[in-house]
């Protein structure tokens, strides 16, 4: 039993970045096709990664390394928590720690662009964190436990009772995937916002680590979405992939908006959806 779990975790650790990188490559390809171009090959992210690994080792401050490693390790820890079907609330807090590490990495140098990027990233955290925490509480309200393993034991998928929160989580996905209209603190290749925002002062191997963490993150986020339909799991994974494609579509039809708009939208719509959901479950199910 322990060996099986250990092997599962190992497969995730090795496989998740590969699948994540491929997803990013597919992202660029489909975006390109939507824009009437050919686009880079699907394995382009891996070329980027290895090129960055081969760059010269330069830095602006020693603390940069600490925070980017923190970002990567806590992202991996969150993914392991998901895979081992552990406590969902703690997973959200670990994800929060990863986000904080990224922000502090931006703050660890006296660079104007990194400074702005870090503040905006903090505002992004302000926008999406309440929704994830409300999701954790709603899962508890529905299942009676915060454990992810409990979600798998249910007959009825979470999507039926938690669909308002599912919509709110789609907002979160847009923010975390750094897609328009929420690609405010830093964004992916080709787009610039305040140069590169949080990642401006990172280069070479440490920037490669940032990409690696992003690949883990996309798998983690899609994993969270697939929790909405765990019985059978392949339906959940399909829903996650559909959400991913929806994000690409939204990215290409919207323009970048302001930080204030993002926080206002997330706190009004996201919170209201979450509160309505929890209130509904509270009044229909009662409480312990």
């Amino acid at each position, binding site marked *: 039993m322990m060996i099986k779990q250990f092997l599962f975790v190992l497969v995730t650790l090795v496989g998740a970045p590969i699948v994540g990188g491929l997803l990013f490559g597919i992202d660029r390809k489909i975006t390109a096709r939507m824009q009437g*171009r050919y*686009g880079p090959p699907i394995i382009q992210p891996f070329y980027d990664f*290895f090129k960055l690994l081969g760059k*010269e080792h330069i830095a602006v401050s020693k603390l940069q390394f600490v925070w980017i490693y923190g970002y990567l390790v806590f992202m991996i820890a969150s993914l392991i928590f998901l895979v081992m079907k552990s406590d969902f609330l703690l997973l959200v807090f670990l994800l929060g720690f990863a986000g904080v590490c990224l922000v502090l990495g931006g703050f660890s140098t006296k660079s104007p662009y990194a400074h702005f990027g870090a503040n905006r990233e903090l505002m992004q955290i302000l926008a999406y964190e309440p929704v994830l925490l409300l999701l954790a509480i709603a899962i508890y309200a529905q299942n009676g436990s915060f454990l992810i393993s409990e979600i798998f034991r249910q007959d009825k998928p979470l999507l039926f009772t938690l669909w308002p929160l599912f919509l709110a989580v789609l907002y979160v996905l847009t923010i975390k995937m750094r897609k328009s209209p929420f690609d405010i603190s830093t964004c992916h290749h*080709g787009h610039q916002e305040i140069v*590169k925002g949080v990642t401006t*002062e990172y280069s070479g191997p440490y*920037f490669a680590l940032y990409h690696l963490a992003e690949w883990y993150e996309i798998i983690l986020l899609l994993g969270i979405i697939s929790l909405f339909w765990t019985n059978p799991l392949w339906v959940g994974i399909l829903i996650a992939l559909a959400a991913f494609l929806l994000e690409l579509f939204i990215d290409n039809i919207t323009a970048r908006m302001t930080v204030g708009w993002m926080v206002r939208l997330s706190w009004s719509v996201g919170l209201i959806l979450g509160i309505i959901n929890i209130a509904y479950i509270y009044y229909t199910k009662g409480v312990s």
Partner: protein
Amino acid sequence: MGLIQRSRVKSPWILHFDNSSCNGCDIEILACLTPLYDVERFGMVNMGNPKHADILLITGPVNRRTARVLKNLYEQVPDPKVVVCVGTCASTGGVFHNCYNVLGGVDKVIPVDVYVPGCSVRPEAIIDGVVMALQKLAKL
């Protein structure tokens, strides 16, 4: 070619810097990024940040103020890097090489790998120049 060398050729990230050009070459460089020429299919991305770049695409003749800026940016780009001068002005100073504030071409300030002549340079020539630079990069 090793994995890293192959990746360098397949994923060249660009820093585009304009010294004091008339913007003619700049427009052509931007045209390369449009769907008509689509250099992104070769993995080329216009990063605005020297710390993320491999290839410097430089336009315009160098004057005293931009010499300082160019040197600063060049030092911030991590190795291995290649420098491509786009346009006659960047290569030699062009029609402005005798002006009182112009120092000449980019090679007066930083080492250059590829010169792409033209006024203004056609996008196909720019892509040609970058491919030559990539071959140099692969050997670094």
